[in-house]
C-alpha cells in the first residue's frame, strides 16, 4: 500500500513535469511559427510553469465545476456526511469536502491534491438508489482514492488535458486564419522550415499526447481502491451490491465528458450498446468492466 502511495506521488511529479515540458514545447512551436524571439522563449517557460502550478492548486475546482457539483448541505444530506465521517475515523484521514451533483445517474468521484485538500462528489441518483451499506461501500472506494493519492494523478490529468487541448486549439485556429506575421529569415532557412513543420505537427498531436498521458492513470487503480475501500468497511458485500446496482442501472450521466471520465466510480460514458461511437468509448474505457471488479471483490 505505502509503495503504491509513493509511486503515485512520483507519478504525479512526472505528470506535472511532462505536462510543463509539453506546454513549453507547444508554446515554443507557436513562437517559431509567429516569430517571437528570445522574449517568446522566456514567455513560454513562464506560461508552462504558471500553468503547472495553477493546475496543481486548482485541479479539484476544475473537476468539480466541470461536473456542476454543489456543496452538500450537512443537514439535508446528513446520511452522506455521517457515513463519510465514520469512514474518516476508520481511516484516520481528515474529512473531505462533500459535493452533490443533480443527476439521476448513480455515480461518484473524488478529487483534490492531497487528503487535506480533497473532495468527494456524488450524484443525487446515487443517494436515492443506494441503501446505507451500499452507499458506504461507494464512499469508502472514493475515500480510498484520496488515501492512495489517486486523486492527485487523476485530477491533474483532467486539468492538463483540458489546458493543452485549449492552447493548441486556439493557436491552430489563429494560424489558420493567417494571424501570424512570419519572420522573413525563417522562410529562407531550411532549418527554420523544418522547425515550423514540427511546430504544426506538435500543435496537432499535442492533445493526443496529453490523452496518452492520461492513461498513466491505469485501470488497476480502481481495483486497488475497491480493496482499500473494503479494508475500511470490512464488509465486501456492501460494495459488491453497490457495483451490481450500478451495473443494472443504465442511466448515463449528463455532466460527464471524456475529460472527466476516469474520475468516476463507474464508467460514466455509454459502453454497453452497439453503436459505433460506443465501441470507441469501450476501447478507451477508463475503468475495468464492473463484472471483473465484482469478481475480484467476491474472491476476497
Amino acid at each position, binding site marked *: 500500500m505505502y509503495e503504491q502511495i509513493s509511486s503515485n506521488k512520483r507519478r504525479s511529479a512526472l505528470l506535472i513535469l511532462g505536462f510543463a515540458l509539453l506546454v513549453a514545447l507547444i508554446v515554443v512551436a507557436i513562437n517559431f511559427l509567429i516569430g517571437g524571439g528570445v522574449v517568446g522563449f522566456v514567455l513560454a517557460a513562464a506560461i508552462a510553469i504558471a500553468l503547472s502550478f495553477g493546475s496543481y492548486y486548482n485541479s479539484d475546482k476544475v473537476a468539480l465545476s466541470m461536473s456542476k457539483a454543489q456543496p452538500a448541505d450537512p443537514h439535508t444530506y446528513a*446520511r452522506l456526511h*455521517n457515513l463519510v*465521517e*465514520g*469512514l474518516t*475515523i*476508520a*481511516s*484516520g484521514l481528515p474529512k473531505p469536502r462533500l459535493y452533490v451533483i443533480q443527476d439521476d445517474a448513480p455515480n461518484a468521484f473524488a478529487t483534490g491534491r492531497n487528503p487535506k485538500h480533497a473532495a468527494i462528489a456524488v450524484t443525487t441518483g446515487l443517494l436515492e438508489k443506494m441503501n446505507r451499506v451500499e452507499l458506504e461501500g461507494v464512499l469508502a472506494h472514493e475515500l480510498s482514492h484520496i488515501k492512495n493519492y489517486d486523486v492527485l494523478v487523476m485530477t491533474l490529468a483532467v486539468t492538463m488535458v483540458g489546458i493543452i487541448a485549449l492552447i493548441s486549439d486556439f493557436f491552430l485556429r489563429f494560424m489558420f486564419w493567417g494571424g501570424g506575421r512570419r519572420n522573413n529569415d525563417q522562410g529562407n532557412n531550411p532549418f527554420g522550415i523544418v522547425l515550423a513543420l514540427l511546430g504544426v505537427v506538435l500543435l496537432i498531436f499535442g492533445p493526443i499526447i496529453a490523452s496518452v498521458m492520461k492513461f498513466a492513470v491505469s485501470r488497476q487503480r480502481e481495483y486497488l481502491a475497491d480493496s482499500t475501500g473494503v479494508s475500511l468497511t*470490512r464488509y465486501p458485500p456492501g460494495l459488491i451490491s453497490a457495483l451490481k446496482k450500478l451495473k443494472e442501472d443504465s442511466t448515463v450521466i449528463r455532466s460527464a465528458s471524456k475529460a472527466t471520465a476516469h474520475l468516476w466510480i463507474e464508467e460514466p460514458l455509454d459502453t454497453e450498446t452497439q453503436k459505433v461511437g460506443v465501441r470507441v468509448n469501450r476501447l478507451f474505457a477508463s475503468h475495468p468492466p464492473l463484472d471483473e471488479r465484482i469478481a475480484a471483490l467476491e474472491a476476497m
Partner: protein
Amino acid sequence: MSPDFRRRVRRLLAVVPLLIILGIIVLVGIIFVFVYNGLVQARNRIDNAWSQIDVQLQRRHDLIPNLVETVKGYAAHERQTLEAVVAARNQAVQAQGPAAQGQAENVLTGALRQLFAVAEAYPDLKANQNFLNLQEELTSSEDRVAYARQFYNDSVLKYNNKIQSIPANLVAGMFGFAEREYFEGEDTARDVPNVQF
C-alpha cells in the same frame, strides 16, 4: 616533494579512519533519531485512537435523552422500554475500564433495539422527522464507535509490527516501548449489533 609536505600528507591520512568512524557514529545517530520519533508517533496515535473511541461513545450517550423524549411524546405508555434505555444509558456513562464499558454498551444496544422495535407500532412516531433524524444519528454513531475501535486496532497493529521489526526493536528495547493490546470482546468492529431499520 619536500619532506615537510610528505609529513603533512601522512598526518592527514592518519585522520581518515577517525573521520570514517565519526561519520558512522553521526549516521547511526541520525537513523536512531528517526526511528525513535517514528515510534513516539505510532504510540501517540494509539492513545489518540483510544480517546477517539471515548469521544464517539460520549456522542452516542448524548443522543439518547433526546430520543427518549421524542418517543415519549408518541408512545408514553411504553414506559418499561423507555426506562430500560435510560437505565442502560446511565450504566454505560458510568462504566469504567474497557471490559465494563464493552458490557454496558452491549446492554445499551440491546435496549435501543427493543425501543426501535416498539416504535414500529407507532406510525406517527415513525413519520416524525426528529425521530428519523435521531435514528440516522444513532446508526451512524454506532458505526463510528465500531470504526474508532477498528482504527485503534489498526494503530496497535502498526505499532506492534514496528517495535518487533529491525531496527526499531533495538530502540524500542532500550526505551521501554512495550507492546500494546488490541481491543477485543464480543463487539469489535462489525460485530456491534446494529440497530436495523
